[in-house]
């Protein structure tokens, strides 16, 4: 299958500080859920920020559908079809749910089409219709995450990158987030996910990527990552995955 996104040997860091990413490599295939795991400080979130243009790539390149993304701003990369949901604070707390959804379609020029897509999203996620006129900041953590993820679907992107969507959520709600990801892949959206809870992330993913010290240690089918004894030992807390 043709690769949708190729990240080749990139280095990146914050401001003038040292590089957090040190030659990270990644291949994204369409229609799959990809999960990046690794210890704290491995550069997982940094990798997503570099891909979406929030951080300047110092070396290496990001190729999306054959086009180089290095040096583009986040809004330009979004228009190419890559959407990023940051860890926490992805919403506008004093805007209503409907207004947040409208912001999700900010780059769409056709207002009627935007409203039609918002209605589609609300039909798919009834909780958002129920809370349509409520401020996003007044919703529960799970509802906020649902909104943040559903909002990305408005522009029908090719790739949605999620930075720890399960952070701070109850286990039952976490599974709902992964169910939403499956809804998204069914719609043709490819998911690139960073997950601190490596076991849960890999169990719900098709493809696993292990990152450590800013480098890609292993890439392969999620079942292979789960069953690899070294990875189990180092990143999955022994043989819990078995």
């Amino acid at each position, binding site marked *: 299958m043709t690769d949708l996104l190729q990240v080749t040997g990139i280095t990146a860091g914050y401001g003038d500080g040292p590089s957090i990413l040190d030659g990270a490599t990644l291949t994204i295939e369409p229609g799959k859920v990809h999960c990046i795991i690794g210890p704290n400080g491995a550069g997982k979130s940094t990798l997503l920020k570099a891909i979406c243009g*929030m951080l300047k790539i110092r070396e290496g390149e990001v190729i999306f559908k054959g086009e180089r993304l290095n040096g583009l701003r986040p809004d330009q990369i979004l228009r190419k079809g890559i959407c990023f949901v940051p860890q926490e604070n992805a919403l*506008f707390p004093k805007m209503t749910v409907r207004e947040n959804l409208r*912001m999700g379609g900010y780059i769409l020029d056709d207002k009627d089409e935007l409203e039609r897509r918002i209605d589609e999203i609300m039909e798919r996620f009834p909780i958002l219709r129920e809370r349509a006129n409520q401020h996003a900041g007044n919703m529960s953590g799970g509802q906020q995450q649902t909104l943040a993820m559903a909002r990305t679907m408005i522009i029908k992107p090719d790739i949605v990158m999620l930075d720890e969507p399960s952070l701070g959520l109850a286990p039952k709600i976490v599974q709902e987030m992964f169910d939403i990801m499956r809804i998204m892949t069914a719609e043709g959206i490819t998911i690139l996910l960073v997950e601190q809870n490596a076991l849960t992330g890999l169990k719900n993913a098709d493809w696993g990527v292990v990152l450590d010290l800013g480098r890609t240690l292993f890439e392969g089918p999620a079942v292979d990552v789960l069953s690899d004894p070294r990875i189990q030992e180092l990143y999955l807390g022994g043989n819990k995955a078995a």
Partner: protein
Amino acid sequence: MSNFIQVLILGLALGGVLALMGSGLSLVFGVMRIVNLAHPALIIAGAYVAYWAFKLWGVDPIVSLPFAAIILSIVGILLYKLVFEREAKSAKYSEMSVLLTFSVAMCVEGALGSAFTNTQRVTSPGYATDAIFIGDIFIPTGQLYAGLISLGLIALLALVLKFSRFGYAIRATTQNREAAELLGVNVNLVSLASFAIGIALAGAAGTLVSFVFSFFPAKHWEWIAILMSLVVLGGMGSILGTVIAAFLLSVIAAFVGAWIGSTWSTMTFFLALFVILLVRPQGLFGEKPELT
């Protein structure tokens, strides 16, 4: 009773003008986190535009309002590009912006003083000294016009912020700059435009101020504390809060002036600033500051 209503009306009329004066300051802070200490100095610059247009060509200050707004918005764009844009990526941006805006205020005051001297000025169209009488109650026409025009401009700003695509971008950038950028908002352009609008509001307020108050270049030092009290009480960055605070404090100041003494009237704003910072630093509509 009629005395009470009289004082209330005078307070409300003053509140309308102060609300417009504070709105631009609040908008700029909300979007860019710049405490623009030069805002009142730019209001004075707007007042001079109206004053000279009236003096030289007999142009009514209300007619010169859009021109002053446009002239000041161009000044705002130049200031942003020359002074603030290059500092935006600095780690000490907020601290730097206070020093920079203080410097800009000094430069504007110096330039105005050099060009127009420190003589007190006031624009005097006919309605500025006129009044409408309803029974025992009088409403100064100048203040009434200034208050109504201010409210009209604030309502227009509110409509733009609430319903236009650009308004969504401004509100989103104010609430969560990073998320706005990730959803396709060009936050640098929004910052530039917001700064220009904020300074345009200063220019518009200046034309109204020109026939409501007497002014001279150094007058802005008095106004900065008054405007800061409105913005802090309303909640830094909340335009609605600033408008409510303007009416609230203006009415209180009017009553203080009527019942205690006019010298205490201005003190109301300064006392309010102290009390708010001690009791509720986030103001009426601001977010509680996080302890770090």
